[in-house]
């Protein structure tokens, strides 16, 4: 039995051109819509895999009312319960968020729902602070593994793997533990129709923040200069075909 808590954040989709809000404090999601980061999608997938035997996988977010969309999306792909700390996320820095998560973990524990494994994304797609996982582990006094791609649990031990500077790394830590996930190790699944319908019916635990936030202390976000175009013209007309075939083979999408 492993009880998993997976933490996600509603962020603007940044797979297209990033647009900043006028005050430079956040990314504007008006055009591209909102999502959770690819790291968190992988964390949700791992949560679903680890608990596929029928264990509890609770998804948690701290966000405004609209963030319920990300909770439902996670419920549709395998999470079984959801907790929503309703708050304006712009007012919360990484220390504030870590503290709020810790409060939820302790409260749930007091209710008899101990989250043995807490999963987070490596970093949020909008603010990129890279801190919440470590701060949370410190708050909870748990071991933490950062930036791994896969996680399995057996006999009270978490096995997490990822790539390090010296090659492939494998960590084994005892539960309870905190792990932050880097995308690339698992393929997040799409929701099914029955999954989506079931997600709609799961009651969501709504909470208010436990404490006043100290704030992100962010001055402002700046956009990097536009990346130089890396378009390479392979040729025109039928003569270009062999070059295209080479590229496709290199990408490994062509079977011969």
């Amino acid at each position, binding site marked *: 039995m492993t009880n998993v808590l997976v933490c996600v954040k509603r962020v603007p989709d940044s797979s*297209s*051109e990033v647009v900043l809000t006028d005050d430079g404090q956040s990314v504007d999601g008006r055009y591209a*819509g909102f999502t959770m980061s690819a790291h968190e999608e992988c964390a949700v997938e791992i949560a679903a895999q680890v608990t596929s035997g029928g264990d509890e996988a609770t998804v948690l977010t701290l966000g405004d009312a609209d963030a319920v*969309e990300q909770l439902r999306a996670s419920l549709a792909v395998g999470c079984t319960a959801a907790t929503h700390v309703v708050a304006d996320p712009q007012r919360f820095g990484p220390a504030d968020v870590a503290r709020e998560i810790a409060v939820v973990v302790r409260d749930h524990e007091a209710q008899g729902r101990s989250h043995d494994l807490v999963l987070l994304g490596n970093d949020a797609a909008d603010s990129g602070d890279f801190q919440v996982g470590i701060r949370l582990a410190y708050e909870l006094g748990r071991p933490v593994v950062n930036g791994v791609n896969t996680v399995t649990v057996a006999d009270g031990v978490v096995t997490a793997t990822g790539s390090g500077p010296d090659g492939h790394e494998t960590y084994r830590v005892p539960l309870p533990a905190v792990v932050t996930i880097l995308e690339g190790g698992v393929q997040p699944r799409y*929701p*099914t129709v*029955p999954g989506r*319908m079931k997600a709609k019916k799961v009651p969501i635990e709504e909470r208010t923040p436990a404490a006043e936030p100290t704030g992100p202390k962010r001055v402002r976000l700046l956009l990097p200069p536009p990346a130089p175009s890396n378009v390479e013209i392979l040729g025109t007309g039928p003569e270009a075909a062999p070059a295209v075939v080479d590229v496709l083979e290199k990408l490994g999408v062509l079977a011969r």
Partner: protein
Amino acid sequence: MATVPSTARAVVIGAGIVGNSLVHHLARLGWRDIVQIDKGPLPNPGGSTGHASNFIFPVDHSREITDLTLDSVRQYQEMGVFTQSGGFELARTPERMEELRRRMSSAKAWGIEAHLVDPDFVKEKVPFIETDQFIGAFWTPSVGVVDSLRAGTIMRENALATGALTVVPNVEVTGLDTEEDAAGRRRITRVRTTGGDIEAETVVIACGVWSPKIGDMAGISIPLTPAVHQMISVGPCPQLAEQEGEISFPIVRDMDTFCYERQHGADMEVGSYAHRAILHEPEDIPSIEQAKLSPTEMPFTSDDFDPQLEQAYELMPELLGAEGAEMRYAINGLLSLTCDGNPILGESEVRGLWTAAAVWIKEGPGVGRAVAEWMTNGHPEIDVNASDISRFHQHQKRREHTRLRTTEAFIKTYGIIHPSEQYESDRGQRLSPMHESQKKLGAFFYETAGWERPHWYESNAHLLDVYGDAVMPREHEWDSRWWSPIINAEHLRMREAAGVIDLSAFCIFDIEGPGALESVQRTCVAQCDVAVGKVIYTPVLDAAGGFRSDLTVMRLGDDVFRVVTGGAHGMADRKWFEDQLVSDPDGAGATTLTDRTDAVSTIGLWGPRARDILASLTGDDVSDEGFGFLTCREIQVKGVPVLASRISYVGELGWELYVPMDQAAELWETLLEAGGPVGAVPVGIGVYGTTGRIEKGYRAYGYELDGERSIVEAGMQRPKVKVADFVGREAYLRQRDEAPAAVLCTMTVDDHTSASGVKRYMLGGEPILTRDGETLTDGHGHHPYVTSAGSAPSLGKHVLMAYLPPDQATVGNRLAVSYMEELYPVTVGSVDATGLLDPTNERIR
């Protein structure tokens, strides 16, 4: 990569299905030096074509839309991009079943094979459907899907191959330059783009959801709104994956949940029109760089879709819940909606600046052909007057109007719409001076061109007892919806005494100047070189001899003509006259057209007592000798100056009284007061537009008359044709020499009793068949359908008008009308413009 040329014969903005089809047809019709630009890349520049569902159900209640669709299907088939799948429209309720029966009427009228089938029939072709979810279906075997991107590429390449076309993608329009001509009319001169400027005298805006933004650059309104249509794709579904090709199961439209299910290879696409109307402004559509997918594939809002997901799942649980079937694609796709649901086509008020927008995949190639023909010949083969951009009145050009109307209409996309149904939003835009008085009289208002028009008056309800069964009450709710027997009571009272009718919605414009006579002569079929004070009723034709309009003209002076036409089509008529204006003959000065609609109100006074009433209010001579039929002149009515015109659209003695707007209310009260003692009552448009005219066999533009009908077919030819030239004269002379391919006839219904014993009354659009229910076909290959239907209370009959094959057009011929899939016997009563009531027009004298 092509660069932007500095000049062009024509610039087409947009490379979606419409722009591509347009350049193809322009090149085919001989245009050269065409430049097509788009801000996106090819072949999918990112507009609505790129994410379209690409399926086509041919049957629509509108003939115009059906014709454009059928022409489009033919073109898609010729290009080899059409795959026939068949399609079902499901009914979950008895009300929907009745609507599907009505749909059968349209299918038969337009000659499209369709059948009503039971759930088992559907199950046989769609094995994964749950038959307990619905009670029946409408089966159209000719439904299919197209590859609209491929079609666009083929058509663009056809045009390129002729050497007529230069295509420049990735170039954005930044401005449209216009200049004023001597007569003060603007014309297009230049398109400014990010790739350089193009001098051009002809420009077409065919950029779908972005069109309003581009139109604004030239100061014209293209009143459409980008609106969200949600769709998801679920797969791979094993039941679908086993099949070869893109589509092997019929498309299912689940009409009562406003959803459809359309196979796409191994995936099932579920689309919805059930969610709240989600509208965007064209300026808020993301750029190609900002968009996650394409600019018109907006982020999916799953909350809006969840209820439909559940309904779709109930209908196809095994398929949508299959192991491994996931929702892999979900978008809020943008498409274009307009205030009346029709496209926006034709030349704008800026000369040379055309539009072809708010067009869906099913009409794309047909619209491309029609607009190209219009640009080339001045008229398209398929009548598209209901889509003409010049139809919009000022209040309809507001974005607010489009927003409110499309919000109201969105949920009706798959709705059951009564033919007389009125919009609720953005009403009260134009109120006649009599409006307050009419409200007190309990007027039931319909809307025409923004005007609130009384359709009948509750104050006349007491007449129901007076006339009893002669008011022809209707038992069936559908037949009597948006109708009242009071209309027929008002009718009978008008024929017995008199009626006073508010006609403020008339469009009125004065043509003045040295070229005025020539301008109206070249526009109108009837002789307009008549004595001052004469009133002329005239058809207006296009060059092919099809109807553009029918209207009246008064000669108010040697160089002054007043044109009076219906509100609904008035703006298009105004543009048509403007286009014919002789601007400055021999340097004698300008000829102008002045819109007087908002300055002049019109009140009709008709009935056997009309002369008595008017005579009691004026010292002027209103006797037949002193004020003959088809004449007009100014008189004083109790001190109010009135231009009185002796004419009638209801077949009674009487006048149209043109009065300054600020004195109209006074005249209205005066007439009602003076008429009261002799039995006159206020009478609504229900009489004026239907019962009064149909007893007299008077034709109405948009019903009996349109661009595909001729004067000869409509039975309106006069013994002589004037010598002076006019638009359509050559064609009209030719038509007079040929035997007509169809003949407009008036019929009466002999027995209204349905199988259930309830008496039914047709409302228009129903097919006319033989007594045995066999199909009839006219010389055009068309099948007869009811163009107008209405009570003829003075005859005690329900009257239908329809174009019949010439060999069926004999008085006394016994035929049948199909209504809700039952046959009712009818008999032909008139085979020309002769009225069934008072055929020698004694009452008008």
